[in-house]
Protein backbone atom coordinates (compact mmCIF):
# COMPACT_ATOMS: atom_id res chain seq x y z
CA UNK A 1 0.00 0.00 0.00
CA UNK A 2 1.19 3.49 -0.79
CA UNK A 3 1.88 5.94 2.03
CA UNK A 4 -0.42 8.95 2.42
CA UNK A 5 2.65 11.07 1.71
CA UNK A 6 2.67 9.61 -1.83
CA UNK A 7 -0.72 11.18 -2.65
CA UNK A 8 -0.73 14.46 -4.56
CA UNK A 9 -3.31 17.01 -5.63
CA UNK A 10 -2.62 17.72 -9.29
CA UNK A 11 -5.70 19.50 -10.58
CA UNK A 12 -7.94 22.24 -9.24
CA UNK A 13 -10.83 24.27 -10.62
CA UNK A 14 -13.38 26.81 -9.40
CA UNK A 15 -16.51 27.67 -11.37
CA UNK A 16 -17.83 31.19 -11.62
CA UNK A 17 -18.73 32.02 -8.02
CA UNK A 18 -21.12 34.29 -6.19
CA UNK A 19 -24.43 34.82 -7.93
CA UNK A 20 -24.72 32.34 -10.81
CA UNK A 21 -28.19 32.28 -12.33
CA UNK A 22 -27.56 30.45 -15.59
CA UNK A 23 -26.17 27.15 -14.28
CA UNK A 24 -27.65 25.00 -11.52
CA UNK A 25 -25.87 22.67 -9.10
CA UNK A 26 -25.41 19.70 -11.45
CA UNK A 27 -24.11 21.87 -14.30
CA UNK A 28 -21.71 23.66 -11.94
CA UNK A 29 -20.50 20.33 -10.55
CA UNK A 30 -19.84 18.98 -14.03
CA UNK A 31 -18.07 22.19 -15.03
CA UNK A 32 -15.86 21.85 -11.93
CA UNK A 33 -15.18 18.16 -12.57
CA UNK A 34 -14.13 18.58 -16.20
CA UNK A 35 -12.30 21.82 -15.38
CA UNK A 36 -10.18 20.15 -12.72
CA UNK A 37 -9.36 17.21 -15.02
CA UNK A 38 -8.22 19.61 -17.76
CA UNK A 39 -6.26 21.68 -15.23
CA UNK A 40 -4.41 18.50 -14.23
CA UNK A 41 -3.40 17.95 -17.86
CA UNK A 42 -5.52 14.81 -17.98
CA UNK A 43 -8.32 13.54 -20.16
CA UNK A 44 -11.73 12.41 -18.81
CA UNK A 45 -10.78 8.79 -19.55
CA UNK A 46 -7.80 9.06 -17.20
CA UNK A 47 -10.10 9.41 -14.18
CA UNK A 48 -11.22 6.17 -12.54
CA UNK A 49 -12.82 7.55 -9.40
CA UNK A 50 -15.38 10.28 -8.74
CA UNK A 51 -16.51 11.47 -5.30
CA UNK A 52 -19.19 14.15 -5.15
CA UNK A 53 -21.27 15.81 -2.49
CA UNK A 54 -25.02 15.88 -2.91
CA UNK A 55 -26.77 19.18 -3.56
CA UNK A 56 -29.06 20.61 -0.88
CA UNK A 57 -30.92 22.59 -3.53
CA UNK A 58 -31.49 19.87 -6.14
CA UNK A 59 -30.74 16.57 -4.39
CA UNK A 60 -30.06 13.57 -6.63
CA UNK A 61 -30.32 10.01 -5.36
CA UNK A 62 -27.19 8.76 -7.15
CA UNK A 63 -25.29 12.02 -7.29
CA UNK A 64 -21.78 10.96 -8.30
CA UNK A 65 -23.15 8.54 -10.88
CA UNK A 66 -25.39 11.24 -12.35
CA UNK A 67 -22.48 13.68 -12.42
CA UNK A 68 -20.36 11.09 -14.24
CA UNK A 69 -23.12 10.49 -16.77
CA UNK A 70 -23.62 14.21 -17.44
CA UNK A 71 -19.86 14.72 -17.83
CA UNK A 72 -19.44 11.68 -20.05
CA UNK A 73 -17.24 9.88 -17.56
CA UNK A 74 -17.31 6.12 -16.99
CA UNK A 75 -15.21 5.81 -13.81
CA UNK A 76 -14.67 2.47 -12.10
CA UNK A 77 -15.65 3.98 -8.75
CA UNK A 78 -18.35 6.47 -7.75
CA UNK A 79 -19.20 7.66 -4.25
CA UNK A 80 -21.74 10.30 -3.21
CA UNK A 81 -21.48 11.85 0.23
CA UNK A 82 -24.50 13.36 1.88
CA UNK A 83 -23.15 16.52 3.40
CA UNK A 84 -20.32 18.99 3.08
CA UNK A 85 -18.69 20.80 5.95
CA UNK A 86 -16.14 18.50 7.56
CA UNK A 87 -17.21 15.79 5.13
CA UNK A 88 -15.45 17.76 2.38
CA UNK A 89 -12.03 16.78 3.64
CA UNK A 90 -13.27 13.36 4.68
CA UNK A 91 -14.13 12.82 1.00
CA UNK A 92 -10.65 13.98 0.06
CA UNK A 93 -9.14 11.53 2.57
CA UNK A 94 -11.19 8.67 1.12
CA UNK A 95 -10.02 9.64 -2.36
CA UNK A 96 -6.44 9.46 -1.11
CA UNK A 97 -7.14 6.11 0.55
CA UNK A 98 -8.59 4.74 -2.67
CA UNK A 99 -5.34 5.61 -4.44
CA UNK A 100 -3.21 4.31 -1.55
CA UNK A 101 -4.91 0.93 -1.64
CA UNK A 102 -4.96 0.60 -5.41
CA UNK A 103 -8.74 0.83 -5.67
CA UNK A 104 -8.30 3.74 -8.08
CA UNK A 105 -5.43 5.62 -9.68
CA UNK A 106 -6.84 9.09 -10.24
CA UNK A 107 -9.83 10.45 -8.33
CA UNK A 108 -11.85 13.65 -8.70
CA UNK A 109 -13.55 15.22 -5.67
CA UNK A 110 -16.22 17.66 -6.86
CA UNK A 111 -18.83 19.73 -5.01
CA UNK A 112 -21.23 22.44 -6.15
CA UNK A 113 -24.50 24.00 -5.08
CA UNK A 114 -26.75 26.98 -5.75
CA UNK A 115 -28.20 28.11 -2.43
CA UNK A 116 -28.33 31.71 -3.61
CA UNK A 117 -30.09 31.57 -6.97
CA UNK A 118 -31.91 28.24 -7.16
CA UNK A 119 -33.69 28.33 -3.80
CA UNK A 120 -35.79 30.99 -2.07
CA UNK A 121 -34.34 32.67 1.01
CA UNK A 122 -37.06 31.19 3.20
CA UNK A 123 -36.51 27.70 1.83
CA UNK A 124 -32.73 28.03 2.25
CA UNK A 125 -33.26 28.99 5.89
CA UNK A 126 -35.44 25.92 6.47
CA UNK A 127 -33.05 23.54 4.72
CA UNK A 128 -30.06 24.80 6.67
CA UNK A 129 -31.80 24.70 10.05
CA UNK A 130 -32.84 21.11 9.38
CA UNK A 131 -29.46 20.05 10.75
CA UNK A 132 -31.18 20.37 14.13
CA UNK A 133 -32.77 17.32 15.73
CA UNK A 134 -36.15 16.89 14.01
CA UNK A 135 -38.06 16.06 17.20
CA UNK A 136 -36.07 17.57 20.07
CA UNK A 137 -34.65 20.78 18.54
CA UNK A 138 -36.35 21.91 15.33
CA UNK A 139 -39.84 22.37 16.89
CA UNK A 140 -38.32 25.28 18.86
CA UNK A 141 -37.51 27.17 15.66
CA UNK A 142 -33.76 27.52 16.00
CA UNK A 143 -32.03 29.05 12.97
CA UNK A 144 -28.46 28.13 12.07
CA UNK A 145 -27.23 31.53 13.32
CA UNK A 146 -29.11 30.78 16.57
CA UNK A 147 -27.18 27.54 17.07
CA UNK A 148 -23.90 29.44 16.71
CA UNK A 149 -25.23 32.24 18.91
CA UNK A 150 -25.64 29.69 21.72
CA UNK A 151 -21.97 28.85 21.28
CA UNK A 152 -20.94 32.52 21.10
CA UNK A 153 -22.85 33.39 24.27
CA UNK A 154 -21.25 30.50 26.16
CA UNK A 155 -17.78 31.58 24.95
CA UNK A 156 -18.45 35.12 26.18
CA UNK A 157 -19.51 33.83 29.61
CA UNK A 158 -16.58 31.43 29.92
CA UNK A 159 -13.71 33.51 28.55
CA UNK A 160 -14.89 37.13 28.62
CA UNK A 161 -14.98 37.23 24.82
CA UNK A 162 -16.73 40.36 23.52
CA UNK A 163 -18.91 41.07 20.52
CA UNK A 164 -16.02 43.18 19.19
CA UNK A 165 -13.80 40.07 19.38
CA UNK A 166 -16.24 38.17 17.17
CA UNK A 167 -16.43 41.15 14.81
CA UNK A 168 -12.71 40.82 14.11
CA UNK A 169 -13.45 37.66 12.09
CA UNK A 170 -15.19 39.64 9.36
CA UNK A 171 -12.61 42.44 9.47
CA UNK A 172 -9.87 39.90 8.70
CA UNK A 173 -12.00 38.14 6.09
CA UNK A 174 -12.75 41.33 4.17
CA UNK A 175 -9.13 42.48 4.33
CA UNK A 176 -8.28 39.40 2.25
CA UNK A 177 -11.44 39.40 0.13
CA UNK A 178 -10.75 42.97 -0.97
CA UNK A 179 -7.69 41.50 -2.75
CA UNK A 180 -9.63 38.69 -4.43
CA UNK A 181 -11.50 39.48 -7.67
CA UNK A 182 -13.65 36.33 -7.29
CA UNK A 183 -14.87 37.19 -3.78
CA UNK A 184 -18.61 37.86 -3.57
CA UNK A 185 -18.18 40.71 -1.03
CA UNK A 186 -15.01 42.80 -1.26
CA UNK A 187 -15.73 46.02 0.64
CA UNK A 188 -13.46 46.33 3.71
CA UNK A 189 -15.34 46.64 7.01
CA UNK A 190 -14.49 47.86 10.51
CA UNK A 191 -15.39 46.38 13.87
CA UNK A 192 -18.03 49.09 14.22
CA UNK A 193 -19.54 48.12 10.85
CA UNK A 194 -19.99 44.59 12.15
CA UNK A 195 -21.34 45.71 15.52
CA UNK A 196 -23.83 48.03 13.80
CA UNK A 197 -25.04 45.45 11.27
CA UNK A 198 -28.51 43.98 11.58
CA UNK A 199 -29.11 41.75 14.64
CA UNK A 200 -29.78 38.15 13.58
CA UNK A 201 -29.58 36.03 16.74
CA UNK A 202 -27.99 37.80 19.71
CA UNK A 203 -25.04 38.24 20.02
CA UNK A 204 -24.56 37.55 16.29
CA UNK A 205 -25.18 40.23 13.70
CA UNK A 206 -25.45 39.98 9.92
CA UNK A 207 -21.71 40.51 9.49
CA UNK A 208 -20.93 37.66 11.91
CA UNK A 209 -22.60 35.30 9.42
CA UNK A 210 -21.27 33.70 6.26
CA UNK A 211 -22.74 34.63 2.92
CA UNK A 212 -25.06 32.66 0.64
CA UNK A 213 -23.64 31.85 -2.78
CA UNK A 214 -23.67 29.72 -5.90
CA UNK A 215 -20.61 27.89 -7.11
CA UNK A 216 -18.58 24.75 -7.28
CA UNK A 217 -15.05 23.45 -7.18
CA UNK A 218 -13.18 20.23 -7.82
CA UNK A 219 -9.72 18.79 -7.28
CA UNK A 220 -7.90 15.82 -8.81
CA UNK A 221 -5.78 13.45 -6.72
CA UNK A 222 -3.32 10.87 -7.96
CA UNK A 223 -0.11 9.16 -6.89
CA UNK A 224 3.15 11.09 -6.83
CA UNK A 225 4.75 8.97 -9.57
CA UNK A 226 1.94 9.91 -11.94
CA UNK A 227 1.96 13.50 -10.69
CA UNK A 228 5.51 13.94 -11.90
CA UNK A 229 4.31 13.64 -15.52
CA UNK A 230 1.67 16.36 -15.12
CA UNK A 231 1.94 20.13 -15.70
CA UNK A 232 1.52 21.54 -12.17
CA UNK A 233 3.89 21.00 -9.24
CA UNK A 234 2.11 18.52 -6.96
CA UNK A 235 0.56 19.60 -3.66
CA UNK A 236 1.04 16.81 -1.15
CA UNK A 237 -1.38 15.42 1.45
CA UNK A 238 0.75 15.29 4.61
CA UNK A 239 -1.70 14.67 7.41
CA UNK A 240 -5.35 14.21 8.28
CA UNK A 241 -7.45 13.90 11.40
CA UNK A 242 -11.10 13.81 12.41
CA UNK A 243 -13.03 14.41 15.60
CA UNK A 244 -16.68 13.82 16.46
CA UNK A 245 -18.06 14.59 19.91
CA UNK A 246 -21.77 15.00 19.10
CA UNK A 247 -24.07 15.88 16.24
CA UNK A 248 -26.80 18.06 17.77
CA UNK A 249 -25.85 21.15 19.77
CA UNK A 250 -28.13 20.21 22.67
CA UNK A 251 -25.97 17.09 23.13
CA UNK A 252 -22.63 18.95 23.29
CA UNK A 253 -20.75 18.32 26.53
CA UNK A 254 -18.86 21.58 25.88
CA UNK A 255 -20.18 24.56 23.91
CA UNK A 256 -16.78 26.27 23.86
CA UNK A 257 -14.24 23.53 23.11
CA UNK A 258 -14.82 21.40 20.02
CA UNK A 259 -13.58 18.14 18.53
CA UNK A 260 -11.22 20.30 16.43
CA UNK A 261 -8.84 19.64 19.32
CA UNK A 262 -8.78 15.95 18.31
CA UNK A 263 -8.74 16.43 14.54
CA UNK A 264 -6.01 19.07 14.69
CA UNK A 265 -3.74 17.01 16.95
CA UNK A 266 -4.12 13.92 14.77
CA UNK A 267 -3.47 15.79 11.53
CA UNK A 268 -0.39 17.63 12.83
CA UNK A 269 0.99 14.41 14.33
CA UNK A 270 0.62 12.56 11.04
CA UNK A 271 2.31 15.41 9.19
CA UNK A 272 5.06 15.42 11.82
CA UNK A 273 4.87 19.16 12.38
CA UNK A 274 3.91 21.50 15.19
CA UNK A 275 1.24 24.14 14.83
CA UNK A 276 4.03 26.75 14.79
CA UNK A 277 5.16 25.36 11.44
CA UNK A 278 1.85 26.14 9.75
CA UNK A 279 2.31 28.96 7.23
CA UNK A 280 -1.31 29.26 6.10
CA UNK A 281 -4.55 28.34 7.88
CA UNK A 282 -7.71 27.88 5.80
CA UNK A 283 -10.45 27.56 8.39
CA UNK A 284 -14.23 27.06 8.34
CA UNK A 285 -15.63 30.50 9.10
CA UNK A 286 -19.35 29.80 8.70
CA UNK A 287 -19.96 32.12 11.68
CA UNK A 288 -17.51 34.31 13.57
CA UNK A 289 -17.50 32.21 16.77
CA UNK A 290 -16.59 29.12 14.72
CA UNK A 291 -13.45 30.86 13.48
CA UNK A 292 -12.41 31.98 16.96
CA UNK A 293 -12.95 28.54 18.49
CA UNK A 294 -11.04 26.82 15.66
CA UNK A 295 -8.07 29.16 16.15
CA UNK A 296 -8.07 28.14 19.82
CA UNK A 297 -8.83 24.45 19.50
CA UNK A 298 -6.31 23.90 16.70
CA UNK A 299 -3.63 25.41 18.94
CA UNK A 300 -2.92 28.73 17.22
CA UNK A 301 -3.62 30.49 20.54
CA UNK A 302 -4.83 29.72 24.07
CA UNK A 303 -8.52 29.40 24.88
CA UNK A 304 -10.09 32.83 25.08
CA UNK A 305 -7.26 34.50 23.13
CA UNK A 306 -8.58 34.23 19.55
CA UNK A 307 -10.22 37.66 19.60
CA UNK A 308 -6.92 39.25 20.55
CA UNK A 309 -5.10 37.21 17.90
CA UNK A 310 -7.49 38.45 15.21
CA UNK A 311 -7.35 42.04 16.50
CA UNK A 312 -3.54 41.97 16.34
CA UNK A 313 -3.76 41.76 12.54
CA UNK A 314 -1.79 38.49 12.47
CA UNK A 315 -4.39 36.77 10.29
CA UNK A 316 -4.69 39.61 7.75
CA UNK A 317 -2.52 40.42 4.70
CA UNK A 318 1.10 40.83 5.80
CA UNK A 319 0.44 39.09 9.14
CA UNK A 320 2.35 36.19 10.72
CA UNK A 321 -0.54 33.72 10.45
CA UNK A 322 -2.51 34.33 7.25
CA UNK A 323 -6.03 32.89 7.61
CA UNK A 324 -8.43 32.37 4.70
CA UNK A 325 -6.49 34.32 2.10
CA UNK A 326 -9.39 33.97 -0.37
CA UNK A 327 -11.77 35.71 2.02
CA UNK A 328 -13.37 32.60 3.52
CA UNK A 329 -17.05 31.83 3.74
CA UNK A 330 -17.67 35.16 5.45
CA UNK A 331 -16.87 37.04 2.22
CA UNK A 332 -15.68 34.87 -0.68
CA UNK A 333 -18.19 32.10 -1.38
CA UNK A 334 -20.44 29.74 0.58
CA UNK A 335 -22.88 27.82 -1.64
CA UNK A 336 -23.83 25.41 1.18
CA UNK A 337 -22.17 22.02 1.34
CA UNK A 338 -19.14 22.88 -0.90
CA UNK A 339 -17.98 25.80 1.30
CA UNK A 340 -14.70 24.26 2.45
CA UNK A 341 -13.62 23.45 -1.14
CA UNK A 342 -12.66 27.07 -1.77
CA UNK A 343 -10.20 27.09 1.11
CA UNK A 344 -8.60 24.12 -0.63
CA UNK A 345 -8.54 25.56 -4.15
CA UNK A 346 -7.08 28.80 -2.75
CA UNK A 347 -4.34 26.85 -0.96
CA UNK A 348 -3.45 25.14 -4.24
CA UNK A 349 -3.32 28.57 -5.90
CA UNK A 350 -0.97 29.75 -3.16
CA UNK A 351 1.35 26.75 -3.74
CA UNK A 352 1.37 27.43 -7.47
CA UNK A 353 2.19 31.09 -6.94
CA UNK A 354 -0.92 32.26 -8.77
CA UNK A 355 -2.74 33.99 -5.89
CA UNK A 356 -2.19 37.47 -7.30
CA UNK A 357 -2.20 40.27 -4.72
CA UNK A 358 -2.80 37.66 -2.02
CA UNK A 359 0.29 35.61 -2.82
CA UNK A 360 2.24 34.59 0.27
CA UNK A 361 6.04 34.93 0.21
CA UNK A 362 6.61 31.69 2.03
CA UNK A 363 4.47 28.56 2.04
CA UNK A 364 5.46 25.10 3.12
CA UNK A 365 2.62 23.78 5.29
CA UNK A 366 -1.07 24.63 5.05
CA UNK A 367 -3.59 23.59 7.68
CA UNK A 368 -7.15 23.31 6.36
CA UNK A 369 -10.05 22.76 8.70
CA UNK A 370 -13.68 22.05 7.99
CA UNK A 371 -16.60 21.23 10.24
CA UNK A 372 -20.12 19.99 9.83
CA UNK A 373 -23.26 20.19 11.89
CA UNK A 374 -23.05 22.81 14.63
CA UNK A 375 -19.31 22.64 15.38
CA UNK A 376 -20.02 18.90 15.52
CA UNK A 377 -17.93 16.90 13.06
CA UNK A 378 -14.40 18.11 12.41
CA UNK A 379 -11.76 17.30 9.80
CA UNK A 380 -8.26 18.78 9.60
CA UNK A 381 -6.00 18.40 6.58
CA UNK A 382 -2.32 19.29 6.32
CA UNK A 383 -0.91 19.99 2.87
CA UNK A 384 2.74 20.39 1.93
CA UNK A 385 4.74 21.44 -1.09
CA UNK A 386 5.73 18.59 -3.38
CA UNK A 387 8.89 18.47 -5.47
CA UNK A 388 8.77 18.26 -9.26
CA UNK A 389 10.38 14.78 -9.26
Amino acid at each position, binding site marked *: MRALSDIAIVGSYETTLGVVTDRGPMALGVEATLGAIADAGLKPGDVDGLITCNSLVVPVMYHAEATAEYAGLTPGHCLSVGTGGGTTFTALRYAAAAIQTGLAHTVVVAMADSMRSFMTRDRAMMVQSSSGHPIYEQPYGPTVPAYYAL*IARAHMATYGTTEADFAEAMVSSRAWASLNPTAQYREPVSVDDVLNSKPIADPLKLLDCSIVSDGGAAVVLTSLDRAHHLPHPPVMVRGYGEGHHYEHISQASSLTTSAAVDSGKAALAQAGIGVGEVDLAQLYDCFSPALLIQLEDLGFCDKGEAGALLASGATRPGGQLPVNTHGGMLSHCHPGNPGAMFGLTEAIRQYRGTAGDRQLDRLEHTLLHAQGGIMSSHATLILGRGDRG
Partner: protein
Amino acid sequence: MGGTDQVNQAYAEGIDAGRLLIQQCLDCQRCQFYPRITCSHCAGDRLDWTESRGGGVVVSFTVVRRGVSADFIAPYVVALVELDEGVRMMTHIVGPDPEQVQIGTPVVLTFQPVGAAGRLPVFSPSPLQQGEASP
Protein backbone atom coordinates in the same frame (compact mmCIF):
# COMPACT_ATOMS: atom_id res chain seq x y z
CA MET B 1 -47.14 2.89 7.40
CA GLY B 2 -48.03 2.97 11.04
CA GLY B 3 -44.46 2.62 12.26
CA THR B 4 -43.35 4.87 15.07
CA ASP B 5 -40.40 4.96 17.46
CA GLN B 6 -41.96 3.93 20.76
CA VAL B 7 -39.60 6.11 22.84
CA ASN B 8 -40.60 9.23 20.90
CA GLN B 9 -44.26 8.27 21.17
CA ALA B 10 -43.99 7.87 24.94
CA TYR B 11 -42.29 11.26 25.23
CA ALA B 12 -45.00 12.93 23.11
CA GLU B 13 -47.76 11.34 25.20
CA GLY B 14 -46.06 12.72 28.31
CA ILE B 15 -46.09 16.22 26.80
CA ASP B 16 -49.81 15.85 26.00
CA ALA B 17 -50.37 14.98 29.66
CA GLY B 18 -48.33 17.97 30.83
CA ARG B 19 -45.36 15.88 31.97
CA LEU B 20 -41.73 16.18 30.85
CA LEU B 21 -40.50 12.60 30.76
CA ILE B 22 -36.83 11.74 30.76
CA GLN B 23 -35.14 8.37 30.83
CA GLN B 24 -33.15 6.91 33.68
CA CYS B 25 -30.86 3.90 33.23
CA LEU B 26 -31.55 1.09 35.67
CA ASP B 27 -27.94 -0.10 35.31
CA CYS B 28 -25.87 3.09 35.77
CA GLN B 29 -28.66 5.22 37.30
CA ARG B 30 -27.86 8.18 35.03
CA CYS B 31 -30.51 10.13 33.14
CA GLN B 32 -30.49 10.96 29.46
CA PHE B 33 -32.28 13.24 27.05
CA TYR B 34 -33.36 12.85 24.24
CA PRO B 35 -34.97 9.42 24.73
CA ARG B 36 -33.27 6.43 23.14
CA ILE B 37 -33.57 2.65 23.11
CA THR B 38 -30.22 2.34 24.90
CA CYS B 39 -28.33 4.29 27.56
CA SER B 40 -25.85 6.70 25.97
CA HIS B 41 -23.67 6.47 29.11
CA CYS B 42 -23.30 2.69 29.54
CA ALA B 43 -25.04 1.19 26.47
CA GLY B 44 -27.43 -0.70 28.75
CA ASP B 45 -30.96 -1.25 27.52
CA ARG B 46 -32.86 -1.23 30.84
CA LEU B 47 -34.32 2.26 30.79
CA ASP B 48 -37.15 3.62 32.88
CA TRP B 49 -39.12 6.84 32.50
CA THR B 50 -39.03 9.45 35.20
CA GLU B 51 -40.87 12.74 35.32
CA SER B 52 -38.67 15.81 35.53
CA ARG B 53 -39.24 17.83 38.68
CA GLY B 54 -39.17 20.85 36.37
CA GLY B 55 -36.23 22.81 37.73
CA GLY B 56 -33.19 23.78 35.70
CA VAL B 57 -30.65 26.40 34.84
CA VAL B 58 -29.89 28.28 31.61
CA VAL B 59 -26.70 26.95 29.98
CA SER B 60 -26.85 29.33 27.00
CA PHE B 61 -29.48 31.34 25.15
CA THR B 62 -30.05 33.58 22.15
CA VAL B 63 -32.72 36.07 21.22
CA VAL B 64 -33.64 35.11 17.65
CA ARG B 65 -34.31 38.34 15.73
CA ARG B 66 -35.18 36.71 12.43
CA GLY B 67 -37.52 33.74 12.76
CA VAL B 68 -36.90 30.47 10.99
CA SER B 69 -40.32 30.52 9.28
CA ALA B 70 -43.68 32.26 9.32
CA ASP B 71 -44.67 29.96 12.21
CA PHE B 72 -42.18 31.72 14.48
CA ILE B 73 -42.72 35.39 15.26
CA ALA B 74 -39.42 37.04 16.24
CA PRO B 75 -38.07 37.88 18.71
CA TYR B 76 -38.10 34.61 20.65
CA VAL B 77 -35.58 33.16 23.06
CA VAL B 78 -34.02 29.81 22.18
CA ALA B 79 -32.05 28.32 25.05
CA LEU B 80 -30.25 25.26 26.26
CA VAL B 81 -31.43 24.38 29.76
CA GLU B 82 -29.81 21.86 32.07
CA LEU B 83 -32.43 20.13 34.21
CA ASP B 84 -31.76 19.33 37.85
CA GLU B 85 -31.76 15.68 36.76
CA GLY B 86 -28.50 16.37 34.87
CA VAL B 87 -29.74 16.35 31.28
CA ARG B 88 -29.72 19.17 28.79
CA MET B 89 -32.43 20.14 26.31
CA MET B 90 -33.20 22.81 23.74
CA THR B 91 -36.19 24.92 24.68
CA HIS B 92 -37.67 28.41 24.79
CA ILE B 93 -37.47 30.90 27.62
CA VAL B 94 -40.88 32.52 28.09
CA GLY B 95 -42.47 34.92 30.52
CA PRO B 96 -42.99 38.67 30.78
CA ASP B 97 -39.36 39.57 30.07
CA PRO B 98 -37.60 36.52 28.60
CA GLU B 99 -34.78 38.59 27.05
CA GLN B 100 -33.53 39.45 30.55
CA VAL B 101 -32.42 35.87 31.12
CA GLN B 102 -28.71 35.21 31.72
CA ILE B 103 -26.50 32.15 31.63
CA GLY B 104 -26.97 30.57 35.04
CA THR B 105 -30.50 31.89 35.57
CA PRO B 106 -32.64 29.29 37.39
CA VAL B 107 -35.76 28.40 35.40
CA VAL B 108 -38.90 26.36 35.91
CA LEU B 109 -40.84 24.19 33.50
CA THR B 110 -44.09 25.22 31.92
CA PHE B 111 -45.96 24.25 28.76
CA GLN B 112 -46.88 26.61 25.92
CA PRO B 113 -47.70 26.43 22.22
CA VAL B 114 -44.51 26.87 20.17
CA GLY B 115 -44.52 27.51 16.42
CA ALA B 116 -46.74 25.02 14.67
CA ALA B 117 -45.85 22.17 17.03
CA GLY B 118 -48.56 22.65 19.65
CA ARG B 119 -47.72 22.66 23.35
CA LEU B 120 -44.07 22.04 24.18
CA PRO B 121 -42.04 22.10 27.38
CA VAL B 122 -40.58 25.61 27.80
CA PHE B 123 -39.10 27.41 30.78
CA SER B 124 -39.56 30.70 32.57
CA PRO B 125 -37.24 32.37 35.06
CA SER B 126 -37.81 30.91 38.51
CA PRO B 127 -40.18 33.18 40.51
CA LEU B 128 -37.94 32.76 43.55
CA GLN B 129 -35.01 34.21 41.65
CA GLN B 130 -36.62 37.16 39.92
CA GLY B 131 -35.19 40.47 41.00
CA GLU B 132 -32.03 38.91 42.38
CA ALA B 133 -28.61 39.48 40.87
CA SER B 134 -27.65 36.88 38.31
CA PRO B 135 -25.76 34.04 39.98
